[in-house]
């Protein structure tokens, strides 16, 4: 066998590819990495196609034993990486050999890190993706988070280039950030006063923040009605239930729902928010759909034009 044995699964480690698309009609959500940028970098630094299957590690605590030779990399939140007990640089591909022990410690800044292996983990697809959505019991291994003694299969070792991302290109994961929102959906249900309140107030990430959605706490925002005919919910949609506390819906969101929505957060910023722990402070900034489109395309170009250093 060629792959990695899970000695300790950590608090919440999930097998993820870029996500599950085209199955909303039977109610399947997208799944996929909460921080798509860190996920993409992890794959790129071990020379993988962008949709390769990697691990999303929340908070930390993962221990693997290699049963193959491979390149591995850890990108994202600041979780210490050790190989055979020796601390190694993150955002930097490392060669491991059969028998090596790979440890990912607990995060000092940020909440999600991505561990990728050259060639990607080989996970059977369900509904055209390996992405784990535990709420649906779909994807990954039996639709569950990683368990002790799971086995992560890999391709036999091959020729892969390996890279390191220079420090100036690495994102940081501080709180007290302003997150960009496009008003839309039921925005007309919110008076100008309510919208001003929403965009000028500070909100706190509560402990009810998970892959489905981040519940925030702050000044109550009141729509002029409590419910709507259930309709499709896009990534980043901000719904306001009757208690007036916003919920930003993320990768494992329900596909349809009936709470009024003031608008949607752009994906670049849901990624930053998903790196925050309960108690972190955020605020919102309104932008147009045109600005959001430009930011997305610019980020795409910037990612492609950023050349990591080859290390192997």
């Amino acid at each position, binding site marked *: 066998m060629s792959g990695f044995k899970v000695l300790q699964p950590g608090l919440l480690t999930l097998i993820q590819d870029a996500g599950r*698309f*085209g*199955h*909303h*009609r*039977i*109610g*399947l*959500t*997208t799944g996929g990495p909460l921080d798509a940028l860190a996920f993409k970098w992890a794959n790129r630094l071990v020379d993988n196609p962008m949709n390769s299957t990697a691990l999303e590690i929340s908070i930390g605590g993962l221990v693997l034993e290699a049963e193959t030779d491979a390149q591995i990399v850890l990108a994202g939140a600041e979780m210490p990486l050790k190989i055979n007990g020796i601390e190694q640089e993150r955002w930097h591909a490392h060669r491991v050999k059969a028998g090596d022990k790979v440890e990912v410690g607990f995060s000092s800044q940020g909440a999600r890190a991505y561990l990728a292996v050259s060639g990607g983990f080989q996970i059977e697809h*369900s*509904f055209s993706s390996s992405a784990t959505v535990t*709420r*649906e*019991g*779909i994807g990954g291994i039996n639709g569950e988070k990683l368990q002790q003694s799971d086995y992560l299969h890999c391709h036999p070792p091959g020729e892969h280039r390996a890279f390191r991302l220079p420090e100036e290109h690495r994102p940081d994961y501080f709180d007290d950030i302003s997150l960009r929102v*496009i*008003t*839309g*959906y039921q925005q007309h249900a919110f008076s100008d006063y309510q919208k001003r309140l929403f965009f000028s107030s500070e909100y706190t990430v509560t402990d*009810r923040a998970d892959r*489905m959605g981040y519940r925030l706490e702050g000044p109550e925002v009141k729509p002029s009605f*409590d*419910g709507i*005919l*259930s*309709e*499709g*919910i*896009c*990534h*980043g*949609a901000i719904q306001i*239930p*009757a*208690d007036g506390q916003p919920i930003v819906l993320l990768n494992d969101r*329900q*596909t*349809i*729902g*009936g*709470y009024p929505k003031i*608008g*949607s957060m*752009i*994906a670049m910023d849901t990624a930053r928010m998903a790196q925050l722990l309960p108690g972190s402070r955020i605020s919102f900034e309104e932008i147009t*759909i*045109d600005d*959001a*489109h430009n930011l*997305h*395309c610019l980020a*795409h170009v910037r990612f492609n034009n950023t050349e990591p250093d080859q290390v192997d």
Partner: protein
Amino acid sequence: MNMMVENTMRIEVAGENALIIYFGEKTDPRVSAQVQQAVTILETELSGMLIDMVPSYASLLVIYDQLATDHLEVRSRIRKVLDQLSDATSNSEGKLVTLPAYYSTESGPDLAALAERAQMSIDEVIQLHSETEYRVYAIGFAPGFAYLGEVDERIAAPRLSTPRMKVPRGAIAIADQQTAVYPAVSPGGWNLIGLCPTRMFDPLAEPTMPVQVGDRIKFNPISQSEFISLGGELGEIR
């Protein structure tokens, strides 16, 4: 082109790569048929730039690839399709599916409050819920979650102000004039009135769901012992 229908349609921004088309304001089998028609046409019209679509009662969420197109182009293509939509009068009847339902205060923690709100007895609520034939208007929220309409307005009830963290699989629930069976354990804000032992979504079964959009559903009241003998389980509710 039917002017009356066209006037009620509008396109709104949903997110950075999503537009939502509103075909009407309320539950209506004719509007629902138009949503289905738009799904079929848009699949071709937006081919190569479409990521996914979410049809619902009277709306259609269209999610597109920002690197392949932009909201202006998608909007204009959608407009063209809406102009071509016929006034779908064919209201093809789907198959009739009967679902067993164990209604009780044990299996439905919101049943008593709902009866009190409606100023009727629990048995009357059960009778009104089980004598209506529902249409599957949409599937979503979770895999296999079929939105059924319409619930008799006397037992319609708004969503809970704070959703529950854990609703058991099989929970029969009401939100406004919609009803549904939760296909898996999940958070949820609907009023729970009973439990159904039939699996609404099984990824390994073929088909994965016992119903599809356009089918009709009727609930058949059963006792606790019938519920257990049909494989039902009383799940944890929080």
